[in-house]
């Protein structure tokens, strides 16, 4: 997928673990792992809002568009 989630970098910048973020945004660790590993198909605005609030960032800081060449 051309959209990548830069959750790792943001967690590192905020000195926060995935488990801690999961508790703060009230999302299961399993779902956050899906998001982190880029396996998620879609993201709710409520999830995006909660992550941006806790990591003090903008949606653009979390998501990145990297075009992939298709065969």
């Amino acid at each position: 997928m051309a959209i990548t989630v830069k959750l790792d970098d943001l967690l590192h910048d905020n000195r926060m673990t995935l488990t801690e973020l999961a508790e703060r945004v009230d999302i299961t660790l399993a779902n956050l792992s899906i998001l982190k590993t880029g396996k998620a198909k879609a993201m709710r605005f409520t999830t995006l809002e909660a992550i941006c609030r806790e990591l003090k960032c903008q949606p653009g800081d979390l998501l990145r568009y990297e075009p992939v060449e298709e065969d």
Partner: protein
Amino acid sequence: MESNMKKDSESNDIVLKSARGILAFSKWVLLVGIGVVTICLLAMPFTYQYLLAEMAKAFVSPPEPEIFGMIALIMALAVVLLLLTLFAVDRLRRIVRSVGEGNPFTHINGTRLRGIGIAAVGIQIVTFCASLLATGVVTMLGDPKPGVDFEMSPDASISISGILLVLLLIILARVFDRGAEMQEELDGTV
């Protein structure tokens, strides 16, 4: 609100449990039915003379030997009919089980419903053929002797409700396919 939901889930459980019970019972009844009809069919060549004599006693004109071929064919069709019904009941049982597990919107359930739909088409065709044969048998047997109680009027016709059932099942299969796609999308949503 909460008590209503609780009541709903309880009634759902009763519905599911009843459905499971009825389908399991139907499965065993069908298996016994298939066994009995198959045994009768296999025993026919051995009881042929006895049956011929018994029928000659009951009907004005003695039955022709070909009639037993037709009766055997009707019995074979009955076995096919019961097998198709068993197939449909078994698929329905699996769908009910998946509803109980809380995950009914899967592609396999769409395939199961389509299978039940095809079985329903088969049941319609087999029933129609068997009814035609039965009409032929009744005609060939002719009038019963006075004092013999024989009343049989097979009705060979296409059932409208059967056609509607097939359409409903095929459309429902598509609904389940779409439901499965939506479920996959929802599962990938964080």
